[in-house]
């Protein structure tokens, strides 16, 4: 039996196709474990050596990892929802109802997307709280704390732009009220401090760039859709890559106090 299995393994792995994809062998040695982590694009995300405290749940709460998991869930379910959702004033709300009541597993997918988004906001805040409590923002990790703060804002902005997409009364008024804050932007908002009157108006201030108009309308729906599905996730991905890379380069997960 064992011989047969070894023969099969030999057949699968001992050829040019397999070895062109997987450069490392399978002997049970420390060198192989390290090689495998270094040479596999998926496994290299995890460091070859991990300190004992880094896998201690009570020290890390695993919140950074959970945030990333939530991001992946929203990305996958979000791509699936995009198959049915059209970001125009005529169709947006109808497509949401279609997804909710007719599409097989549509309700499940939409709720997964929603709850994962909520979970990501909660987890990212708890992650920040943990990093603060363990003093992990201190030298040499100051830069990564800064990147993390931007990622927190990016997470909020992802939630906010997604809020408009159902295009119902809740979405419309929540975004109307939310974007009214942009009127009060210093200098760049038409009701903000230091904004020159009659030069900065409703039609050329920073809120206009966000809404694509002076009121929340179809162009706002399209703008928020592009931001929610393409621009902000791309930005978040780049920043997350930087964030994770810096965790490794700054000496891995910080030690206990």
């Amino acid at each position: 039996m064992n011989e047969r299995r070894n023969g099969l393994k030999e057949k699968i792995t001992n050829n040019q196709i397999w070895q062109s994809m997987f450069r490392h062998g399978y002997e049970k040695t420390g060198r192989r474990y390290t090689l495998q982590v270094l040479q596999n694009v998926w496994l290299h995300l995890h460091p070859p050596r991990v300190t004992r405290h880094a896998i201690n749940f009570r020290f890390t709460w695993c919140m950074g990892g959970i945030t990333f998991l939530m991001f992946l869930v929203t990305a996958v379910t979000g791509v699936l929802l995009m198959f049915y959702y059209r970001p125009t004033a005529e169709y947006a709300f109808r497509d949401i109802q279609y997804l909710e009541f007719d599409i097989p597993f549509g309700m499940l997918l939409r709720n997964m997307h929603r709850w994962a988004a909520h979970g990501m906001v909660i987890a990212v805040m708890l992650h920040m709280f943990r990093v603060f409590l363990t003093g992990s923002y201190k030298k040499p990790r100051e830069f990564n704390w800064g990147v993390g703060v931007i990622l927190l804002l990016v997470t909020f902005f992802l939630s906010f732009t997604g809020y408009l997409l159902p295009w119902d009364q809740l979405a419309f008024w929540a975004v109307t009220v939310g974007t009214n804050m942009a009127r009060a932007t210093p200098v760049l908002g038409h009701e903000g401090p230091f904004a020159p009157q009659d030069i900065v108006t409703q039609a050329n201030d920073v809120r206009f760039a966000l809404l694509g108009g002076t009121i929340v309308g179809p162009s706002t729906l399209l703008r928020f859709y592009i931001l929610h599905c393409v621009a902000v996730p791309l930005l978040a991905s780049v920043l997350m890559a930087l964030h994770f890379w810096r965790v490794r380069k700054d000496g891995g997960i910080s030690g206990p106090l």
Partner: protein
Amino acid sequence: MLSRRSFFKFLGWGNFLAAAGLAFGPGLIRFLYPRVLFEPSSVFKAGFPGEYPPGTVSEKFKKNPYGVWIVRKEDGEFYALVAICTHLGCTPRWFASENKFKCPCHGSGFDREGMHFEGPAPRPLERVQITLAEDGQLLIDKSVKFLEERGDWGKPGSTLRI
């Protein structure tokens, strides 16, 4: 001294960065501000003055896309109030029996003049320009605003006396 090589390096990179900077800076920002908007006009006619009895608040033009109350005082003077709560932008309602505008979101109250007197609203309702059109109808221009806190109420155009 600046060498020939570093001079051309500076020139080349400078050109490249200036072009890229213009395209992705001012160009991208300008791209976000379209020339034509498909929004309702800020100017509209609101019928003849005779349609509004003195001492009433008309909700006829409160609906989309107008969003203003046309108020006529007992002495016949007109003014137009924007139907947007100055707290967070919800749409208040007019209660004739209580003689006040009341916002359903957080309970801000405004009197008939538009002055805030209860709830979280930080300033009075906004007034917009009201004049007579050539055909004798009321002409409202929502792009011209009169704010009480700037001392605009009473300026020409903020009220209309017939």
